[in-house]
Protein backbone atom coordinates (compact mmCIF):
# COMPACT_ATOMS: atom_id res chain seq x y z
CA UNK A 1 0.00 0.00 0.00
CA UNK A 2 2.70 2.46 1.03
CA UNK A 3 4.90 1.40 -1.82
CA UNK A 4 2.40 2.62 -4.33
CA UNK A 5 3.25 6.26 -3.79
CA UNK A 6 6.39 5.96 -5.91
CA UNK A 7 4.35 4.97 -8.90
CA UNK A 8 2.40 8.20 -8.89
CA UNK A 9 3.60 10.89 -11.28
CA UNK A 10 4.58 13.93 -9.29
CA UNK A 11 2.67 16.36 -11.50
CA UNK A 12 -0.61 15.00 -10.15
CA UNK A 13 0.13 17.11 -7.12
CA UNK A 14 1.20 20.40 -8.60
CA UNK A 15 1.55 22.60 -5.52
CA UNK A 16 4.01 25.45 -5.69
CA UNK A 17 7.53 24.73 -4.45
CA UNK A 18 6.87 21.32 -2.93
CA UNK A 19 9.81 20.74 -0.64
CA UNK A 20 8.94 17.15 0.08
CA UNK A 21 6.20 16.19 -2.32
CA UNK A 22 5.74 12.78 -0.80
CA UNK A 23 4.60 14.03 2.57
CA UNK A 24 1.12 15.27 2.07
CA UNK A 25 0.35 15.91 5.73
CA UNK A 26 2.86 16.43 8.52
CA UNK A 27 1.93 17.17 12.12
CA UNK A 28 4.90 18.08 14.28
CA UNK A 29 4.19 18.29 18.04
CA UNK A 30 0.80 19.73 17.30
CA UNK A 31 -1.53 20.72 20.12
CA UNK A 32 -4.91 22.32 19.68
CA UNK A 33 -6.79 24.09 22.46
CA UNK A 34 -10.12 25.61 21.53
CA UNK A 35 -10.57 29.00 23.20
CA UNK A 36 -13.71 28.16 25.16
CA UNK A 37 -12.71 24.72 26.26
CA UNK A 38 -10.33 23.68 29.01
CA UNK A 39 -8.97 20.37 27.77
CA UNK A 40 -6.77 20.01 24.71
CA UNK A 41 -8.59 18.76 21.63
CA UNK A 42 -5.26 17.55 20.24
CA UNK A 43 -2.26 16.91 22.42
CA UNK A 44 1.29 16.83 21.06
CA UNK A 45 0.47 15.00 17.89
CA UNK A 46 3.15 13.74 15.51
CA UNK A 47 1.86 12.28 12.28
CA UNK A 48 3.12 11.93 8.73
CA UNK A 49 0.84 10.93 5.93
CA UNK A 50 2.40 10.22 2.57
CA UNK A 51 1.16 10.69 -0.88
CA UNK A 52 -1.15 7.91 -2.02
CA UNK A 53 -1.86 6.54 1.46
CA UNK A 54 -5.26 5.48 2.74
CA UNK A 55 -5.47 6.26 6.45
CA UNK A 56 -8.24 5.61 8.96
CA UNK A 57 -8.65 7.92 11.91
CA UNK A 58 -10.52 6.26 14.75
CA UNK A 59 -11.27 7.19 18.34
CA UNK A 60 -14.05 7.77 20.75
CA UNK A 61 -16.52 10.58 20.40
CA UNK A 62 -14.61 13.77 21.17
CA UNK A 63 -11.18 12.19 20.65
CA UNK A 64 -10.10 14.85 18.16
CA UNK A 65 -10.71 13.32 14.72
CA UNK A 66 -12.59 16.29 13.33
CA UNK A 67 -10.08 18.63 14.92
CA UNK A 68 -7.36 16.87 12.93
CA UNK A 69 -9.32 17.47 9.73
CA UNK A 70 -9.95 21.08 10.70
CA UNK A 71 -6.23 21.72 11.03
CA UNK A 72 -5.45 20.26 7.61
CA UNK A 73 -8.15 22.50 6.09
CA UNK A 74 -6.91 25.54 8.01
CA UNK A 75 -10.35 25.72 9.56
CA UNK A 76 -8.48 25.90 12.88
CA UNK A 77 -4.89 26.84 13.70
CA UNK A 78 -2.63 24.81 15.98
CA UNK A 79 -1.97 26.26 19.42
CA UNK A 80 1.47 24.72 19.40
CA UNK A 81 3.58 22.80 16.91
CA UNK A 82 3.50 22.92 13.13
CA UNK A 83 1.13 21.55 10.55
CA UNK A 84 2.40 21.12 7.00
CA UNK A 85 0.19 20.40 4.05
CA UNK A 86 1.75 19.58 0.68
CA UNK A 87 5.15 20.40 2.05
CA UNK A 88 4.33 23.88 3.28
CA UNK A 89 3.47 25.00 6.79
CA UNK A 90 -0.07 26.27 7.26
CA UNK A 91 1.21 29.75 8.06
CA UNK A 92 2.28 30.06 4.42
CA UNK A 93 -1.29 29.63 3.25
CA UNK A 94 -2.63 33.13 3.60
CA UNK A 95 -5.48 35.04 2.00
CA UNK A 96 -6.09 33.72 -1.48
CA UNK A 97 -3.73 30.80 -0.98
CA UNK A 98 -6.04 29.36 1.69
CA UNK A 99 -8.73 29.16 -0.97
CA UNK A 100 -6.28 27.56 -3.41
CA UNK A 101 -5.29 24.99 -0.78
CA UNK A 102 -8.89 24.05 -0.07
CA UNK A 103 -9.66 23.67 -3.76
CA UNK A 104 -7.14 20.87 -3.88
CA UNK A 105 -8.68 19.03 -0.94
CA UNK A 106 -11.90 17.10 -1.40
CA UNK A 107 -13.77 17.09 1.89
CA UNK A 108 -16.74 15.20 3.28
CA UNK A 109 -17.71 17.18 6.36
CA UNK A 110 -19.14 15.35 9.33
CA UNK A 111 -22.09 17.75 9.41
CA UNK A 112 -22.33 17.30 5.63
CA UNK A 113 -22.39 20.91 4.62
CA UNK A 114 -24.35 21.09 1.40
CA UNK A 115 -25.42 24.38 -0.12
CA UNK A 116 -29.07 24.43 0.81
CA UNK A 117 -30.49 26.39 -2.09
CA UNK A 118 -28.75 24.34 -4.74
CA UNK A 119 -29.83 21.02 -6.20
CA UNK A 120 -27.73 17.91 -5.73
CA UNK A 121 -26.33 18.47 -9.23
CA UNK A 122 -25.41 22.08 -8.53
CA UNK A 123 -23.88 21.20 -5.20
CA UNK A 124 -21.52 18.81 -6.89
CA UNK A 125 -20.92 21.17 -9.81
CA UNK A 126 -20.03 23.98 -7.41
CA UNK A 127 -16.67 22.35 -6.67
CA UNK A 128 -15.96 22.25 -10.37
CA UNK A 129 -16.89 25.91 -10.69
CA UNK A 130 -14.62 26.92 -7.83
CA UNK A 131 -11.71 24.86 -9.11
CA UNK A 132 -12.13 26.41 -12.54
CA UNK A 133 -13.19 23.37 -14.57
CA UNK A 134 -14.81 24.58 -17.82
CA UNK A 135 -18.59 24.36 -17.81
CA UNK A 136 -18.92 21.96 -20.70
CA UNK A 137 -17.19 19.24 -18.66
CA UNK A 138 -19.62 19.54 -15.76
CA UNK A 139 -22.54 17.41 -16.89
CA UNK A 140 -20.39 14.38 -17.59
CA UNK A 141 -18.28 14.64 -14.46
CA UNK A 142 -21.15 15.47 -12.11
CA UNK A 143 -23.22 12.68 -13.67
CA UNK A 144 -20.45 10.18 -13.08
CA UNK A 145 -19.98 11.29 -9.47
CA UNK A 146 -23.70 11.06 -8.69
CA UNK A 147 -23.90 7.66 -10.35
CA UNK A 148 -21.00 6.50 -8.23
CA UNK A 149 -23.00 7.17 -5.04
CA UNK A 150 -26.26 5.86 -6.54
CA UNK A 151 -28.08 9.18 -6.81
CA UNK A 152 -28.33 9.64 -10.57
CA UNK A 153 -32.12 9.82 -10.21
CA UNK A 154 -32.13 12.58 -7.60
CA UNK A 155 -29.92 15.16 -9.32
CA UNK A 156 -32.59 17.86 -9.17
CA UNK A 157 -33.52 17.44 -5.51
CA UNK A 158 -32.42 20.08 -3.03
CA UNK A 159 -30.87 18.91 0.25
CA UNK A 160 -34.12 19.26 2.25
CA UNK A 161 -35.74 16.94 -0.26
CA UNK A 162 -33.20 14.24 0.40
CA UNK A 163 -32.89 11.80 3.27
CA UNK A 164 -29.88 12.24 5.53
CA UNK A 165 -28.14 9.31 3.92
CA UNK A 166 -28.78 10.72 0.47
CA UNK A 167 -27.36 14.07 1.56
CA UNK A 168 -24.29 12.33 2.84
CA UNK A 169 -23.87 10.64 -0.51
CA UNK A 170 -24.16 13.96 -2.33
CA UNK A 171 -21.39 15.27 -0.08
CA UNK A 172 -19.25 12.30 -1.05
CA UNK A 173 -19.92 12.90 -4.73
CA UNK A 174 -18.93 16.52 -4.26
CA UNK A 175 -15.67 15.53 -2.58
CA UNK A 176 -14.56 13.19 -5.36
CA UNK A 177 -15.84 14.98 -8.45
CA UNK A 178 -12.81 17.24 -8.92
CA UNK A 179 -10.27 14.38 -8.55
CA UNK A 180 -8.49 16.12 -5.69
CA UNK A 181 -4.95 15.10 -4.72
CA UNK A 182 -6.11 14.83 -1.09
CA UNK A 183 -9.45 13.63 0.23
CA UNK A 184 -10.64 14.09 3.81
CA UNK A 185 -13.77 12.20 4.80
CA UNK A 186 -15.14 12.75 8.29
CA UNK A 187 -17.59 10.00 9.23
CA UNK A 188 -18.96 9.73 5.68
CA UNK A 189 -21.04 6.64 6.47
CA UNK A 190 -22.69 7.74 9.73
CA UNK A 191 -26.13 7.91 8.14
CA UNK A 192 -25.68 5.07 5.70
CA UNK A 193 -26.89 1.48 5.91
CA UNK A 194 -24.22 -1.24 5.77
CA UNK A 195 -24.71 -1.84 2.04
CA UNK A 196 -24.29 1.77 1.09
CA UNK A 197 -21.44 2.18 3.54
CA UNK A 198 -19.50 -0.63 1.90
CA UNK A 199 -20.16 0.85 -1.50
CA UNK A 200 -18.77 4.21 -0.32
CA UNK A 201 -15.68 2.47 1.03
CA UNK A 202 -15.17 0.78 -2.34
CA UNK A 203 -15.47 4.15 -4.06
CA UNK A 204 -12.92 5.73 -1.75
CA UNK A 205 -10.52 2.85 -2.30
CA UNK A 206 -10.93 3.25 -6.03
CA UNK A 207 -10.21 6.94 -5.79
CA UNK A 208 -7.18 6.11 -3.68
CA UNK A 209 -5.94 3.68 -6.30
CA UNK A 210 -6.05 6.50 -8.84
CA UNK A 211 -3.53 8.41 -6.72
CA UNK A 212 -5.55 10.38 -4.21
CA UNK A 213 -4.39 10.41 -0.61
CA UNK A 214 -7.37 9.53 1.59
CA UNK A 215 -7.88 10.29 5.28
CA UNK A 216 -11.06 8.76 6.66
CA UNK A 217 -12.38 9.41 10.18
CA UNK A 218 -14.90 6.80 11.17
CA UNK A 219 -16.64 4.89 13.94
CA UNK A 220 -17.57 1.98 11.70
CA UNK A 221 -15.64 -0.89 13.24
CA UNK A 222 -16.75 -3.41 10.62
CA UNK A 223 -15.56 -1.24 7.74
CA UNK A 224 -12.18 -0.67 9.35
CA UNK A 225 -11.80 -4.39 9.91
CA UNK A 226 -13.04 -5.41 6.47
CA UNK A 227 -11.15 -2.91 4.33
CA UNK A 228 -7.79 -2.86 6.05
CA UNK A 229 -5.58 0.21 5.87
CA UNK A 230 -3.19 2.10 8.09
CA UNK A 231 -5.13 3.15 11.17
CA UNK A 232 -4.42 6.04 13.54
CA UNK A 233 -6.15 5.75 16.90
CA UNK A 234 -6.76 8.88 18.97
CA UNK A 235 -7.71 8.94 22.62
CA UNK A 236 -8.49 12.27 24.22
CA UNK A 237 -6.40 14.14 21.69
CA UNK A 238 -3.35 11.86 21.89
CA UNK A 239 -2.19 9.46 19.22
CA UNK A 240 -2.21 6.12 21.05
CA UNK A 241 -1.74 3.77 18.09
CA UNK A 242 -0.44 4.02 14.52
CA UNK A 243 -1.02 0.62 12.99
CA UNK A 244 0.11 0.09 9.40
CA UNK A 245 -1.66 -3.26 9.29
CA UNK A 246 -5.00 -1.76 10.28
CA UNK A 247 -7.68 -3.00 12.65
CA UNK A 248 -10.07 -1.33 15.05
CA UNK A 249 -8.48 -1.29 18.49
CA UNK A 250 -10.65 0.74 20.84
Amino acid at each position, binding site marked *: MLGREHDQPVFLFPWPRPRRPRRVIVFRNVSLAYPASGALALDDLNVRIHKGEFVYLVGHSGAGKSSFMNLV*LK*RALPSRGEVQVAGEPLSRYRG*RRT*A*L*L*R*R*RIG*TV*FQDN*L*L*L*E*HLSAYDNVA*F*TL*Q*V*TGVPGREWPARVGTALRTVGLEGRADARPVQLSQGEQQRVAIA*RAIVADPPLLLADEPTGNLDPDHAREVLRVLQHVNLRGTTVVLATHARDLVETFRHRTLTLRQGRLVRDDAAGGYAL
Partner: protein
Amino acid sequence: MTYHFRQALLAMRGNLTATLGTLTTMTLTLLMLGGVLLLTLNVNRTLEGLESQVEVAAFLEGEADGAALLRQVEALPGVREAQLVPSEAVLAEMTRDYPSTAEAAKLVGNPFPDTLRVRVGRVEDSRPVAQAVERLPGVEDVEYGAGYVDQAVRTLTTVRAAGYGLVALLFAGTLLSILNAVRVAMYARRREISVMRLLGATRGFIRTPHVIEGVLLGTLSSALALAVLAPGYLALAERVAAFAPVFPVVRDQGTLLPLLGAVAMLGILTGLAGSLFATQRYLRELE
Protein backbone atom coordinates in the same frame (compact mmCIF):
# COMPACT_ATOMS: atom_id res chain seq x y z
CA MET B 1 -20.30 37.61 -14.07
CA THR B 2 -23.63 36.18 -15.16
CA TYR B 3 -23.45 33.93 -12.10
CA HIS B 4 -22.90 36.88 -9.79
CA PHE B 5 -25.61 38.92 -11.45
CA ARG B 6 -28.09 36.07 -11.15
CA GLN B 7 -27.12 35.62 -7.51
CA ALA B 8 -27.66 39.32 -6.88
CA LEU B 9 -31.11 39.25 -8.43
CA LEU B 10 -31.96 36.07 -6.52
CA ALA B 11 -30.86 37.67 -3.28
CA MET B 12 -32.88 40.80 -3.97
CA ARG B 13 -35.97 38.74 -4.68
CA GLY B 14 -35.33 36.45 -1.75
CA ASN B 15 -35.10 39.33 0.68
CA LEU B 16 -37.78 41.41 -0.91
CA THR B 17 -38.68 43.23 2.27
CA ALA B 18 -35.09 44.19 2.88
CA THR B 19 -34.71 45.25 -0.73
CA LEU B 20 -37.86 47.34 -0.70
CA GLY B 21 -36.93 48.78 2.68
CA THR B 22 -33.54 49.87 1.46
CA LEU B 23 -34.98 51.16 -1.77
CA THR B 24 -37.56 53.25 0.08
CA THR B 25 -35.13 54.65 2.62
CA MET B 26 -32.57 55.38 0.00
CA THR B 27 -34.98 57.02 -2.43
CA LEU B 28 -36.40 59.13 0.36
CA THR B 29 -32.95 60.16 1.48
CA LEU B 30 -31.96 61.17 -2.00
CA LEU B 31 -35.26 63.01 -2.41
CA MET B 32 -34.68 64.82 0.85
CA LEU B 33 -31.09 65.47 0.01
CA GLY B 34 -32.08 66.88 -3.36
CA GLY B 35 -34.87 68.87 -1.75
CA VAL B 36 -32.61 70.32 0.90
CA LEU B 37 -29.92 71.11 -1.63
CA LEU B 38 -32.43 72.92 -3.82
CA LEU B 39 -33.81 74.69 -0.79
CA THR B 40 -30.32 75.71 0.24
CA LEU B 41 -29.60 76.96 -3.22
CA ASN B 42 -32.68 79.14 -3.07
CA VAL B 43 -32.11 80.18 0.51
CA ASN B 44 -28.59 81.20 -0.39
CA ARG B 45 -29.81 83.27 -3.32
CA THR B 46 -32.37 84.92 -1.10
CA LEU B 47 -29.81 85.54 1.61
CA GLU B 48 -27.43 87.09 -0.90
CA GLY B 49 -30.25 89.31 -2.05
CA LEU B 50 -31.13 90.23 1.49
CA GLU B 51 -27.57 90.89 2.51
CA SER B 52 -27.04 93.18 -0.45
CA GLN B 53 -30.00 95.13 0.88
CA VAL B 54 -28.46 95.70 4.26
CA GLU B 55 -28.30 99.44 4.00
CA VAL B 56 -28.63 102.22 6.50
CA ALA B 57 -30.53 105.29 5.31
CA ALA B 58 -29.90 108.57 7.12
CA PHE B 59 -32.44 111.31 6.46
CA LEU B 60 -30.79 114.69 6.73
CA GLU B 61 -32.25 117.85 8.15
CA GLY B 62 -33.07 120.40 5.49
CA GLU B 63 -30.15 122.69 6.31
CA ALA B 64 -27.50 120.01 6.91
CA ASP B 65 -24.27 119.92 4.90
CA GLY B 66 -24.60 116.69 3.00
CA ALA B 67 -21.07 116.56 1.61
CA ALA B 68 -19.46 117.08 5.05
CA LEU B 69 -21.66 114.43 6.60
CA LEU B 70 -20.80 112.05 3.80
CA ARG B 71 -17.12 112.37 4.61
CA GLN B 72 -17.79 111.85 8.33
CA VAL B 73 -19.88 108.75 7.68
CA GLU B 74 -17.36 107.24 5.31
CA ALA B 75 -14.81 107.43 8.11
CA LEU B 76 -16.92 105.34 10.49
CA PRO B 77 -15.74 101.78 11.14
CA GLY B 78 -17.85 99.07 9.46
CA VAL B 79 -18.95 101.30 6.63
CA ARG B 80 -18.19 99.89 3.23
CA GLU B 81 -19.65 102.57 1.03
CA ALA B 82 -21.75 105.66 1.43
CA GLN B 83 -23.61 107.81 -1.03
CA LEU B 84 -25.43 111.10 -0.83
CA VAL B 85 -28.76 111.11 -2.60
CA PRO B 86 -30.42 114.52 -2.97
CA SER B 87 -34.14 114.72 -2.28
CA GLU B 88 -35.04 115.08 -6.00
CA ALA B 89 -33.23 111.86 -6.81
CA VAL B 90 -35.10 110.06 -4.02
CA LEU B 91 -38.41 111.34 -5.37
CA ALA B 92 -37.51 110.23 -8.89
CA GLU B 93 -36.57 106.81 -7.62
CA MET B 94 -39.73 106.41 -5.59
CA THR B 95 -41.82 107.62 -8.49
CA ARG B 96 -40.25 105.01 -10.69
CA ASP B 97 -40.98 102.23 -8.17
CA TYR B 98 -44.39 103.42 -7.02
CA PRO B 99 -46.01 105.67 -9.68
CA SER B 100 -48.67 106.92 -7.24
CA THR B 101 -45.93 108.81 -5.40
CA ALA B 102 -45.87 111.34 -8.22
CA GLU B 103 -49.48 112.29 -7.65
CA ALA B 104 -48.91 112.59 -3.93
CA ALA B 105 -45.90 114.80 -4.58
CA LYS B 106 -47.93 116.94 -6.90
CA LEU B 107 -50.32 117.53 -4.01
CA VAL B 108 -47.94 117.98 -1.09
CA GLY B 109 -44.58 118.75 -2.67
CA ASN B 110 -41.50 116.55 -2.46
CA PRO B 111 -41.86 114.87 0.93
CA PHE B 112 -38.39 113.27 0.85
CA PRO B 113 -35.31 114.79 2.55
CA ASP B 114 -31.75 114.49 1.28
CA THR B 115 -30.62 111.00 2.17
CA LEU B 116 -27.30 109.34 2.94
CA ARG B 117 -27.28 105.70 1.87
CA VAL B 118 -24.71 103.71 3.81
CA ARG B 119 -23.73 100.13 3.01
CA VAL B 120 -22.13 98.12 5.76
CA GLY B 121 -19.70 95.27 5.34
CA ARG B 122 -21.61 92.69 7.37
CA VAL B 123 -25.18 92.39 8.54
CA GLU B 124 -24.07 92.56 12.15
CA ASP B 125 -22.51 95.99 11.59
CA SER B 126 -25.73 97.69 10.60
CA ARG B 127 -26.92 98.36 14.14
CA PRO B 128 -23.74 100.11 15.51
CA VAL B 129 -23.29 102.02 12.25
CA ALA B 130 -26.90 103.19 12.39
CA GLN B 131 -26.47 104.32 15.97
CA ALA B 132 -23.25 106.17 15.18
CA VAL B 133 -24.80 107.89 12.18
CA GLU B 134 -27.85 108.90 14.17
CA ARG B 135 -25.65 110.71 16.69
CA LEU B 136 -24.13 112.92 13.99
CA PRO B 137 -25.48 116.49 13.97
CA GLY B 138 -27.63 117.22 10.93
CA VAL B 139 -29.09 113.72 10.79
CA GLU B 140 -32.78 113.81 11.52
CA ASP B 141 -33.63 110.16 11.44
CA VAL B 142 -32.08 106.82 10.58
CA GLU B 143 -33.70 103.78 9.11
CA TYR B 144 -32.19 100.37 8.64
CA GLY B 145 -33.63 97.03 7.76
CA ALA B 146 -31.59 95.14 10.31
CA GLY B 147 -34.57 94.24 12.42
CA TYR B 148 -36.17 92.65 9.42
CA VAL B 149 -33.13 91.39 7.57
CA ASP B 150 -31.47 90.01 10.70
CA GLN B 151 -34.51 87.97 11.52
CA ALA B 152 -34.85 86.73 7.99
CA VAL B 153 -31.21 85.77 7.80
CA ARG B 154 -31.40 83.96 11.10
CA THR B 155 -34.60 82.15 10.25
CA LEU B 156 -33.37 81.04 6.87
CA THR B 157 -30.05 79.95 8.33
CA THR B 158 -31.94 77.90 10.91
CA VAL B 159 -34.10 76.33 8.22
CA ARG B 160 -31.01 75.48 6.22
CA ALA B 161 -29.23 74.03 9.24
CA ALA B 162 -32.29 71.97 10.14
CA GLY B 163 -32.35 70.74 6.56
CA TYR B 164 -28.71 69.74 6.73
CA GLY B 165 -29.32 68.01 10.04
CA LEU B 166 -32.22 66.10 8.58
CA VAL B 167 -30.21 65.05 5.59
CA ALA B 168 -27.37 63.90 7.81
CA LEU B 169 -29.81 61.79 9.83
CA LEU B 170 -31.41 60.39 6.73
CA PHE B 171 -28.03 59.65 5.34
CA ALA B 172 -27.13 57.73 8.44
CA GLY B 173 -30.45 55.95 8.04
CA THR B 174 -29.67 55.05 4.46
CA LEU B 175 -26.23 53.77 5.24
CA LEU B 176 -27.58 51.68 8.10
CA SER B 177 -30.29 50.42 5.82
CA ILE B 178 -27.81 49.36 3.18
CA LEU B 179 -25.47 47.79 5.69
CA ASN B 180 -28.44 46.01 7.12
CA ALA B 181 -29.74 44.84 3.77
CA VAL B 182 -26.35 43.41 2.92
CA ARG B 183 -26.13 41.90 6.35
CA VAL B 184 -29.53 40.27 6.01
CA ALA B 185 -28.56 38.87 2.65
CA MET B 186 -25.26 37.59 3.98
CA TYR B 187 -26.79 36.20 7.14
CA ALA B 188 -29.38 34.37 5.14
CA ARG B 189 -26.42 32.86 3.31
CA ARG B 190 -24.14 32.44 6.29
CA ARG B 191 -24.00 28.66 6.30
CA GLU B 192 -23.65 28.75 2.56
CA ILE B 193 -20.88 31.31 2.77
CA SER B 194 -18.87 29.31 5.25
CA VAL B 195 -19.34 26.19 3.13
CA MET B 196 -18.24 28.06 0.03
CA ARG B 197 -15.16 29.31 1.83
CA LEU B 198 -14.33 25.77 2.92
CA LEU B 199 -14.71 24.56 -0.64
CA GLY B 200 -12.14 27.13 -1.74
CA ALA B 201 -14.21 30.09 -2.92
CA THR B 202 -12.39 33.41 -2.52
CA ARG B 203 -13.79 36.35 -0.59
CA GLY B 204 -14.21 38.29 -3.81
CA PHE B 205 -16.33 35.52 -5.27
CA ILE B 206 -18.63 35.68 -2.27
CA ARG B 207 -18.76 39.47 -2.07
CA THR B 208 -19.42 40.21 -5.71
CA PRO B 209 -23.17 39.47 -5.85
CA HIS B 210 -23.78 41.59 -2.77
CA VAL B 211 -21.80 44.50 -4.18
CA ILE B 212 -23.74 44.23 -7.42
CA GLU B 213 -26.93 44.29 -5.39
CA GLY B 214 -25.79 47.46 -3.62
CA VAL B 215 -24.96 49.24 -6.85
CA LEU B 216 -28.24 48.16 -8.46
CA LEU B 217 -30.17 49.46 -5.48
CA GLY B 218 -28.25 52.73 -5.52
CA THR B 219 -28.88 53.23 -9.21
CA LEU B 220 -32.55 52.40 -8.91
CA SER B 221 -33.00 54.77 -5.97
CA SER B 222 -31.24 57.56 -7.82
CA ALA B 223 -33.43 57.08 -10.86
CA LEU B 224 -36.58 57.08 -8.74
CA ALA B 225 -35.51 60.11 -6.76
CA LEU B 226 -34.66 62.11 -9.88
CA ALA B 227 -37.90 61.07 -11.55
CA VAL B 228 -39.81 62.61 -8.66
CA LEU B 229 -37.51 65.47 -7.80
CA ALA B 230 -36.92 67.09 -11.17
CA PRO B 231 -40.52 67.59 -12.35
CA GLY B 232 -41.71 68.22 -8.81
CA TYR B 233 -39.22 70.99 -8.25
CA LEU B 234 -39.80 72.61 -11.59
CA ALA B 235 -43.56 72.66 -11.03
CA LEU B 236 -43.15 74.13 -7.57
CA ALA B 237 -40.60 76.66 -8.73
CA GLU B 238 -42.94 77.85 -11.45
CA ARG B 239 -45.75 78.21 -9.01
CA VAL B 240 -43.62 80.10 -6.50
CA ALA B 241 -42.25 82.32 -9.23
CA ALA B 242 -45.79 83.13 -10.34
CA PHE B 243 -47.16 83.60 -6.87
CA ALA B 244 -44.32 85.30 -5.07
CA PRO B 245 -42.01 86.84 -7.64
CA VAL B 246 -39.99 88.48 -4.87
CA PHE B 247 -38.25 85.15 -4.25
CA PRO B 248 -35.36 84.64 -6.65
CA VAL B 249 -36.24 80.98 -7.43
CA VAL B 250 -33.45 79.12 -9.18
CA ARG B 251 -34.68 77.69 -12.44
CA ASP B 252 -31.73 77.72 -14.80
CA GLN B 253 -30.63 74.30 -16.03
CA GLY B 254 -26.96 75.18 -15.78
CA THR B 255 -27.28 75.21 -12.00
CA LEU B 256 -29.90 72.51 -11.58
CA LEU B 257 -28.51 69.74 -13.77
CA PRO B 258 -25.13 69.42 -12.01
CA LEU B 259 -26.90 69.42 -8.67
CA LEU B 260 -29.29 66.64 -9.69
CA GLY B 261 -26.42 64.75 -11.26
CA ALA B 262 -24.50 64.97 -8.03
CA VAL B 263 -27.47 63.61 -6.10
CA ALA B 264 -27.70 60.65 -8.48
CA MET B 265 -23.97 59.96 -8.29
CA LEU B 266 -24.16 60.08 -4.52
CA GLY B 267 -26.91 57.47 -4.56
CA ILE B 268 -24.88 55.10 -6.68
CA LEU B 269 -21.73 55.70 -4.69
CA THR B 270 -23.57 55.11 -1.43
CA GLY B 271 -24.82 51.78 -2.77
CA LEU B 272 -21.33 50.83 -3.84
CA ALA B 273 -19.48 52.00 -0.76
CA GLY B 274 -22.10 50.63 1.63
CA SER B 275 -22.06 47.18 0.12
CA LEU B 276 -18.29 47.09 -0.19
CA PHE B 277 -17.93 48.01 3.44
CA ALA B 278 -20.71 45.74 4.63
CA THR B 279 -19.51 42.70 2.73
CA GLN B 280 -16.03 43.15 4.03
CA ARG B 281 -17.17 43.63 7.58
CA TYR B 282 -19.75 40.88 7.73
CA LEU B 283 -17.62 38.40 5.87
CA ARG B 284 -15.05 38.85 8.60
CA GLU B 285 -17.79 38.52 11.19
CA LEU B 286 -19.00 35.27 9.69
CA GLU B 287 -15.60 33.63 9.58
